[in-house]
């Protein structure tokens, strides 16, 4: 059963897989099925071995022709209404598809089990999950009242943040921070500088690796964390998709949050 509640039946374990999301590609490699991946998106950048797999272009609204040319026996699609036409076309051509919603930490386990089953690697998937659960538990910083509030700024003009229940928000919370906009249900939303000022963020998490340009803009000088340049930079792909690297990402962020407070 995949994340569209469809049941997928394969006559034999998949051996030619086109993986149409960076998260599923990384996951396939993590359970030892990397050799069966014959197509990926141009965004699939981890592990390094994935770069040797031919790219079929975009993962959302993929080119069905480019996918079919790889002669896959299984296509892994990201769950999005925009991918429905491609899924239907592939099914009409007799190619099996599996649709995975791989956006959050807790969706990872289910996705790993499905891909483990479809590739005949349930054992590898199960041991990977067990190891991950153990490392996740060890990496997670217990929630504290004194936890620093973190503004997760994914875009600066207009200022956009992410609400509770998004991947990066979960990572921040597990690393011992509190999402400044945890009250937002939306996965991403435009906010005003004014509401940032009023909430007094301790730190600002940005996805660039250098000092952000907006930090010099006049309206942002009203935010103490901007004036004092309290930025935390995360730009590794481990911070933008669920993967076996989550525990390391959490530990790395936790270390930086701690360092910023001292």
């Amino acid at each position: 059963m995949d994340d569209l509640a469809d049941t997928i039946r394969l006559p034999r374990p998949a051996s030619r897989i086109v993986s149409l999301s960076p998260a599923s590609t990384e996951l396939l490699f993590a359970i030892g099925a990397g050799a069966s991946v014959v197509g990926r998106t141009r965004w699939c950048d981890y592990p390094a071995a994935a770069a040797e797999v031919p790219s079929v272009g975009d993962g959302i609204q993929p080119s069905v022709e480019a996918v079919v040319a790889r002669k896959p026996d299984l296509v892994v699609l990201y769950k999005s209404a925009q991918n429905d036409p491609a899924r239907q076309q592939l099914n009409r051509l007799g190619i099996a598809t599996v649709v995975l919603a791989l956006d959050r930490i807790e969706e990872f386990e289910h996705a790993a089990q499905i891909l483990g089953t479809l590739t005949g690697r349930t054992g590898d998937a199960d041991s990977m999950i067990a190891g991950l659960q153990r490392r996740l538990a060890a990496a997670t910083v217990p929630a504290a009242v004194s936890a620093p509030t973190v503004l997760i700024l994914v875009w600066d003009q207009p200022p956009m943040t992410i609400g509770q229940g998004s991947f990066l928000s979960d990572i921040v919370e597990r690393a011992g921070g509190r999402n400044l906009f945890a009250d937002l249900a939306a996965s991403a939303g435009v906010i005003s500088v004014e509401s940032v000022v009023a909430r007094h963020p301790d730190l600002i998490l940005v996805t660039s690796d250098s000092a952000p340009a907006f930090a010099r803009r006049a309206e942002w000088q009203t935010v103490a964390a901007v004036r004092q340049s309290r930025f935390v930079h995360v730009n590794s792909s481990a911070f933008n998709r669920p993967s076996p690297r989550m525990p390391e990402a959490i530990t790395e962020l936790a270390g930086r949050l701690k360092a910023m407070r001292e």
Partner: protein
Amino acid sequence: MKSRHLLFLIGVALLSLAIGIMVGPVSLSPGELWDAIKSSGGEAAPIIRQIRVPRVLLAFLVGGGLAVSGAALQALIRNPLADPYLLGLSGGAGLGAVIAIAAGFGGAWTVPLMAFAGAMLALALVYRLSLVQGRRLDPRVLILAGVIVSAFTGALMSAIMALSDASALRNAFLWLLGGFSGASWPTLGFFVLYALIPLVLLMASARALDLLALGDDSARHLGLDVGKARLIVYLSTGLLTAAAVATCGIIGFVGLVVPHAARRLLGPLHRPLLPAVFLAGGAFLVLADALARTAARPLELPVGVVTAVVGVPLFALLLRRTLT
């Protein structure tokens, strides 16, 4: 009659500015507001002084500028559907912004600057295309040139979007949708720098616009240098709109409907009309932005959404009442 309308509109404008400063995602009591205005020390002072006041002033000037541009273009092109973005400016600005982001230098300053450059380029291109036989600016060709430049820039934008990182460009489009989240004293200064002269020129062109609306021959017989008047109006509206796009994206509806509403109340003469349009456009956009900031707080709505959702029913009501 005329001065009474003007006084009323000044009152409305001042009231809108006061409301704009009083409301926001952060609720402040009248006491806190007063403290923030009196001294810079308090908790609320930076919110009021660094964020709300420049934002409200910018919204007012942009709203007034777009409305005056719309009124002038409607007279220039003799087409009631004319709005400040008709002449390809929004397309040029959008293309500039998208290029900046796709080329990887999309920052808080570069995106607006590239949008401004794109709008000015589109302005020059449309102008060149509309010079019939090398000399006269023909309004019919002007509108067609605007449409084809828009179509062309739109196609280029789609091509760049199809070929580059989707998430950054989605955000570029959010910016283009229009909003005042980037408002600050320097942004306000930038807008005033570029908008002041065009605004004054347009106000001074009131009589020329009246004559242009009569048609070329009548205007010429009444002593107007038609070519020069057109050029001034075209370049002024273009510069004003480009400055508006660069500071706050594309905000539709203000430039189209405010002039029509004002004409229904005040008649077609531009000397009383333009100041009224400026005040009404400014007040309308300040109030729309106040709603955009507060309706879904702490989230912000695109202000263009608010101008349309609030403005369309208001205008429909006005149409029905003044048609009878």
